[in-house]
């Protein structure tokens, strides 16, 4: 028996998960890793083209509007709001995971609800911004914004902006749908019957990843 105890301390000796993690959660991690490469490739393509351009539109002059503020020049304000909405929804998600560890159904449902509200708020902001830019004449293949040095810009700016924020927005959208499904499952007691709230953890990983990608979209499109 002493031998069995010694064997048990080795991760790769068999009989248990060497990563000490459930299969679905491990696969979620690997999916997110591959998704990191997808977003990474998008952002690096954007960086390469921007770097190869002699001049580029100034984000402070493109993203300067705020709902209801008319033509006021407010650089960075709206995107700050979007960033904080996503950070807050990430916090409510981690609180839902925390309640799941305790097996507290009510707590999970409450925090999942607020996470979904945060996701919807973010999507609404993005819809407003896209609509605003569209009415200013920007879309795939169309770019009304001049370069920072005053020359006429190529359509690269709009193409990359709409493709990358669109791909991110699609992730947020699917995240909201997945959150909604798990909220219903938690509410109807599916996880209680299973005896664990691991599904909330997996969904949480996806949601945090969406926030993580936004950190870099925010950085490379709006800040630098």
């Amino acid at each position, binding site marked *: 028996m002493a031998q069995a105890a010694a064997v048990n301390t080795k991760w790769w000796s068999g009989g248990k998960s060497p990563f000490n993690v459930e299969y679905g959660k491990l696969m979620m991690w690997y999916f997110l*890793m591959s998704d990191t490469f997808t977003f990474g490739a998008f952002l690096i*393509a954007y960086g390469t083209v921007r770097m190869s351009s002699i001049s580029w539109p100034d984000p402070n002059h493109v993203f300067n509007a705020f709902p209801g503020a008319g033509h006021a020049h407010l650089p960075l304000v709206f995107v700050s709001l979007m960033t904080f909405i996503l950070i807050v929804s990430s916090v409510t998600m981690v609180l839902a995971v925390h309640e799941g*560890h305790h097996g507290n159904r009510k707590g999970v449902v409450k925090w999942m609800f607020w996470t979904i509200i945060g996701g919807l708020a973010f999507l609404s902001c993005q819809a407003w911004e896209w609509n605003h830019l569209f009415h200013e004449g920007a879309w795939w293949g169309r770019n009304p914004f001049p370069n920072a040095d005053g020359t006429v810009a190529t359509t690269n700016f709009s193409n990359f902006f709409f493709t990358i924020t669109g791909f991110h927005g699609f992730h947020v959208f699917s995240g909201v749908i997945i959150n909604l499904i798990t909220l219903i499952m938690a509410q109807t007691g599916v996880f209680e019957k299973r005896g664990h709230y691991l599904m909330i953890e997996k969904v949480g990983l996806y949601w945090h990843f969406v926030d993580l990608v936004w*950190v*870099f979209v925010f*950085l490379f499109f709006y800040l630098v």
Partner: protein
Amino acid sequence: MEHQTFGGEVTLPHHAPTDESKKRIWKTTLILSVITMFELALGYLIYNMHQSPDYNHTLVLALKGVIIILSLAKAFYIVSIFMHLGDEIRNLIMTIVAPLMIFIWFIIAFMYEGNSWKTLRNKYNPQEPVKYEQTETPSHEGGLK
């Protein structure tokens, strides 16, 4: 906490959920918010510097570098604390993090490529195309003739 069983596999609990972990969540939230606000402050600083035509290019580039490093710190906190990767065992962390090392090459190679294009564009002049004339081969001293 007892060992949980998932489909016959014995899995150890990652960490006992205590008030300590909740405190950690709030602390991380505070850190992320403060970093974001600091980034925004630097963003406004860059914006204000851009107002004058002869701004200090090196300083703007340095500030942008600082913002990028701060964002990487944010990414670390989100992955390590919110996604609990820091609580997983080393083997798992390495299989996630090690493949990401390829980004080091990815970013350097493509930024180099982009910069090279820019240099070529700056040199390009339709009135005076660059001539690639064959120069006389320098005479070798020694070697095969």
